[in-house]
């Protein structure tokens, strides 16, 4: 597949870097983040970053796998180049959430699950998905 960087995507990517405080071009694709990721993300963290490095902003932003990140920070901790994939993924999620595009539906959520979950799960879950 031939990938051509998209002009307008470059602007989104520099905005994402500004918002997250991360330097995406620092990544040299060693794959340690992906190797340690417990969320079985597909596309994997290093792949998402490679999309961004290639100027394919929409591919990264619309990847369903970003919603499986649980912010355990294993990727960020192990990155030899001091990049935080977790922060970049959260930055991508925030773009959806700020566009009023939530990923859990309060109406249809299991009441039983809510009743059993500790407050911290509900509060942080709502912050990450709504």
């Amino acid at each position, binding site marked *: 597949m031939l990938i051509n960087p998209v002009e307008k995507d470059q602007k989104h990517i520099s905005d994402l870097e500004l918002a997250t405080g991360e330097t995406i071009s620092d990544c040299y694709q060693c794959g340690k983040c992906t190797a340690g990721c417990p*969320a079985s993300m597909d596309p994997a963290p290093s792949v998402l970053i490679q999309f961004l490095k290639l100027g394919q902003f929409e591919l990264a932003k619309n990847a369903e796998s970003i919603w499986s990140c*649980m912010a355990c*920070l*294993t990727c960020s901790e192990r990155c030899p180049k001091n990049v935080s994939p977790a*922060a970049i993924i959260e930055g991508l999620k925030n773009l959806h959430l700020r566009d009023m595009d939530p990923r859990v539906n309060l109406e249809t959520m299991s009441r039983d699950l809510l009743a059993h979950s500790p407050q*911290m799960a509900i509060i942080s879950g709502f912050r990450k998905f709504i």
Partner: protein
Amino acid sequence: MSEKTVRIPYYPGCTMKTKALGFERSAMDCAEVIGFEMDELKDWNCCGASYPLTKDNLMGLTAPTNILIEAERRCQKEEVDPNLLTLCVFCYNTLKRTEFALGQDKKKLETINAFLDRKYEGSIRVVHYLEYLRDVIGFDNLAKMVKTDMSKYKVAPYYGCLLLKPQKEIGLDDPEDPVILHNFLDALGCKVIDFPAQVDCCGSYLVIREPEKVSKLSYDILADANEYGAETLVTACPLCQSNLDQSQGDKVQFADLDGMPILYFTQLLAVAFGLDTKTHKLEEHHIDPLPLLKAHSGADSESK
């Protein structure tokens, strides 16, 4: 017990007053034995539960900063050391990272102060209960307070993620090869079960969106602990406790694994101290820990 009880400002957080009451009560009972008092802040708000990972999210820092301000005012008024004790790992992580961020970035601090219309001077040091036991009390001193023979307990120390990461900001222990819970259990006299999954993620808040994934991750952790010979697992995090404990209700995922009780480290400490555990909510755990405590209780144990 001690001639002079030290009072330490304490931030509980929401979960400690609801689902993790047994954690708080056991911690308070143990503190009394050790000789300090967890002195709850009078006016506290939720810390926000998860620290915002992106640098632009100043709004997410306002709630934890407000808590640090409350603690700072209390410490200044009472002229005590500017420490803030925490139990919940999410609260600890959020407050500790806020402490770090505001210490690094004065401009951020000024912006938040202006927004809150209150002044945080940056003096508070956030401390976890485990950290206090290790650094102030000392695990060797803790060992001298143990009343129960704990040698029969085969316990897996489970750290999870947010107690340790990011190391640069939290600095409690090595996030890949931690020892603090190991050393704590050693001090109690338990048989410590070192197992590879001790720092694996349980699935965290994903439980509200993909509970089946959390079941799978919890299974992997518990199957690992079981394989290495653990009969119980201790944690400091109410969400880890809940995920690992409640997931065991998933009979399909857990078909080949016997129930493993998941205890807060303070609940086990209370047993080691020979305290009455009636108020420690052990009966509310999905996998009942009481049969295990009963099986190991010698003549000198009070646990029912």
